């Protein structure tokens, strides 16, 4: 859930890390690691769709 939140705020709302941290109530470092994890999860899932 928090991964999705970070990714939505970053990619769809185009917020800065600082603003995401403010909205989510977590430190910027956490924002960074959540985004990295979120991207990896999403990429794995998407590539799973393309190559069954």
């Amino acid at each position, binding site marked *: *859930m928090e991964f*999705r*939140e970070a*990714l*939505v*705020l*970053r*990619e*769809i*709302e185009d*917020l*800065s*890390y600082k*603003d995401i941290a*403010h*909205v*989510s*109530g977590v430190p910027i470092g956490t924002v*960074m690691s959540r*985004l*990295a994890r979120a*991207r990896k999860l*999403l*990429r794995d899932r*998407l590539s799973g769709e393309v190559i069954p």
Partner: protein
Amino acid sequence: MSCDEIKDLLDAFVDGELDLRSNVAVEGHLNECAACAGEVEGRMELRQAIGEADLYFPAPREVRQRIRRSLRTRWIPRVWWSVPVAAALALVFVLAPRPGSTAMEQAVVSGHVRSLMPNHLMDVPSSDSHTVKPWFNGKVDFSPPVKDLKADGFTLVGGRLDYLQDRTVAALVYQRRKHLINVFLWPSSRADSGVTAETRQGYNLLHWTRSGFEYWAVSDLNLQELGEFERLLRE
């Protein structure tokens, strides 16, 4: 730096959140390392896929109304900042100013952007301050000080009326090379103030009060030259 160290920075790199030094380090590494360059490319593809997926949709009317109602009475508690309402919150973000901003700054930038649209820049196109100044007679209830700074590389190109935060203001347009500068001004009872600088949506803003006028200068010109412009106007 090693690949492992670089990999930790790649997300911040594609998000433009790295400091200058790390940014240069990552760029240098990407030129030499195909694996890391591929990682960056993957992230860019993902971004593109998200951008094209049409994921942004307005919240249903009832949700929107519920949020508006709750905003009227109290600020949303932090627990509400969760994903099920993210789509609805999208709306709140559009309506509410970002942290650290003021409505006036937003209005100044909007006025500037609006003026750059075709045929919106000037009502009185003239580089002659003796033409621009009298033009405001009868249009606003004050006579704005108009200065020609052509000799210093800031050419007066015209003036127009604009509307900021519920009042009519004078807008003077100057040009520095290809950059246009909008100066919004109106009478103010505030005491003279120093200059404050802000950057918003890539535009630089300067704000000051002088001799009974409040000034806002906005441009895509760099802050240093804009500061020079402000000093010349002040003299």
